């Protein structure tokens, strides 16, 4: 085992629920996950399993109807859930933890030029800004010292070049809609890396892109974060993308993690029945994809015990009763299942 010091983020027993018309939806129900320094952790699961909710919980931007946040989110040793709101807003989100969202169209302000959006990021979140520079009203009116402004601007141009935006300095005078989808995602990556964060949360950052552009963006993101030693939480529903970019993979099912392993081990020795079925549902030449069967459960009244049991061919009585504890398949490969699958998936 690695020393706990190597963990940048430790999510422990996190619970988040939402008030809905039909009752309280237990969207994250005891989630555990760690991210080490410099590693890309993949969070994989089907639509509605809670990927975006976990991403937003870490960033401290859950929607207004979210309730009952319990558990802990230890980031660099401190619990984000118990940190004063102001400190999270000022020193953590956008500064030490940044965000690359799924939809780059929605996350730019369409009315402002790219340059002014980059400048805004740097004004408040640049690593040159003293930790205790003014906050609140005082901070709002405080000066943006000229020397820092110049250095920040130079960094921003440099970052645009790094993400291969053609004619970076001219790009600053353009509006978001003047860029293609792939370029907007490059700009998003640039904005996320400018503050030199420790952790980047990338929520399905390539789902809206074409395959060739996706390959270019994944290649770029991987190179940049590895060069800088930045950790990434990379959510995706696409196992191929996870294979491309992640060091480790966590699978989530209906708001709970079920398996976690280093990437190669994950694909060679998937052990949770759900993971195995997910892999079998991928189209591959010479093999019909196999359906999982059954339906993803509702979260207001989810199945007791292992949430996968109504769809699981291996389920026995115990599976209906209690959520399986975490066990280890091997040193770095964790699992929550009473009846792990021993055989490997046919390649």
């Amino acid at each position, binding site marked *: 085992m690695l020393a706990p010091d190597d963990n940048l983020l430790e999510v422990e027993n996190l619970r988040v629920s939402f008030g809905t018309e039909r009752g309280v939806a237990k969207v994250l129900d005891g989630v555990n996950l760690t991210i080490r320094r410099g590693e890309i952790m993949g969070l994989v699961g*089907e*639509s509605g399993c809670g990927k975006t909710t976990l991403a937003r919980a870490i960033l401290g931007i859950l929607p207004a109807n979210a309730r009952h946040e319990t558990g802990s989110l230890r980031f660099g040793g401190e619990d984000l859930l118990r940190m004063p709101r102001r400190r999270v807003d000022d020193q953590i989100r956008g500064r030490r933890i940044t965000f690359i969202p799924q939809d780059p169209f929605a996350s730019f302000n369409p009315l402002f030029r790219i340059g002014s959006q980059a400048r805004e990021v740097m004004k408040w979140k640049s690593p040159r800004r003293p930790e205790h520079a003014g906050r609140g009203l005082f901070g709002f009116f405080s000066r943006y010292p000229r020397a820092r402004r110049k250095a920040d601007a130079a960094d921003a141009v440099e970052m645009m070049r790094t993400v291969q935006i053609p004619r970076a300095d001219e790009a600053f005078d353009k509006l978001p809609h003047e860029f*293609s*989808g*792939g*370029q907007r995602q490059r700009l998003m990556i640039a904005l996320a890396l400018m503050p030199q964060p420790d952790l980047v949360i990338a929520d399905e950052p390539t789902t809206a892109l*074409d*395959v*060739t*552009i*996706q*390959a*270019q963006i*994944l*290649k770029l993101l*991987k190179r940049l974060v590895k060069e800088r030693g930045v950790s990434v939480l990379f959510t995706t*529903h*696409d*196992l*191929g*993308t996870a*294979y*491309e*970019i992640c060091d480790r993979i966590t699978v989530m099912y209906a708001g709970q993690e079920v398996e976690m392993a280093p990437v190669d081990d994950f*694909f*060679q020795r998937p052990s949770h029945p759900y993971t195995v*079925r*997910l892999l079998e*549902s*991928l*189209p*591959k*030449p010479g093999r*019909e*994809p*196999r*359906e*999982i069967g059954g*339906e*993803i459960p509702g979260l207001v009244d989810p199945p007791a015990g292992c949430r996968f049991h109504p769809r699981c061919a291996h389920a026995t009585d115990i599976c209906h009763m209690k959520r399986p504890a975490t066990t280890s398949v091997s040193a770095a490969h964790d699992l929550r299942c009473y009846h792990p699958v021993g055989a490997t998936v046919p*390649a």
Partner: protein
Amino acid sequence: MREAPILKADRLSRHFPVRNAFGIRTGAVRALDGVSFEVAPGETLGIVGESGCGKSTLGKALVGIHPLSGGAIVFEGEEISRLSGRERRAVAPRLQYCHQDPGNSLDPRWTVRRSLEEPLIVHTELEAAERVIRIRDLLRQVGLPQTHLDLYPHELSGGQQRRVGLARILALHPRLVVLDEPTSGLDMSVQATVLKLFGELRQAFALTYLFISHDLSVVRMMCDRVAVMYLGRIVEIAPTETLFRAPQHPYTQSLLAAIPDIGGRRVTDTFTLEGEPPDPARLPSGCRFRTRCPRAVAACAETDPALRPLRPDHAAACLLAG
């Protein structure tokens, strides 16, 4: 050699005007720029290519949702692109388009029952009682429980919405169905179910599919032949396995090289294509792929390569191919 085609597209073109801020026409996007191909009865022809290359425009032009700027469509032996409104409507039931976004194609105020009954009222002479039976059969054929008849689209999952969309189309006994991105936005497990359904329906109803998708692994599984489009043109067309094993056009080669290969070498280590597609309203001279092409030579800026046969069933539009 082959059976008479069920569909023949001949030099189809479709131009959209580009206007400046004052509404003055400054040019045109050639969304379809001379697209020709044939589809044999019972065949599934895949159409792949990047966003904006004209896949949906092609699908919509074939079924008459979009008018053409030029070219001809022969469907079941009949030239249909110049038919009048009423004659064209007579063809419509046999040639159907399945929408890219199933949520959008279903009326949010209609129950599943109403959505399925409407095409039967418009296009058939069936009595009310016969329609009820027909609707029940359709629901069973697409694998939805009868209890779903009274649900509204927002109460259905993405996969279920897609099933309703299909049931609506099958109601009219089509001969050819254009499936536009039929699995996009679906989860892996749902996708497997929906693909299986397409296969079963093809058998049961002797359907011919035009299968539009940007997911190459799905296309490989579902299609007999594949046409690759780039900026309004078909740049390569071949039987599926030939195309995947021995692609001849550099764009097809890049497209295939971009697919993650679980267990194999990582695309992030091997992928070399740079740049993005040019503005479709301002195409480069010569070959439209040359601005990204890793193999481009001087001649590529001079000559616009036509789609030319390399073998009887394999054609590519590249000066260097073959």
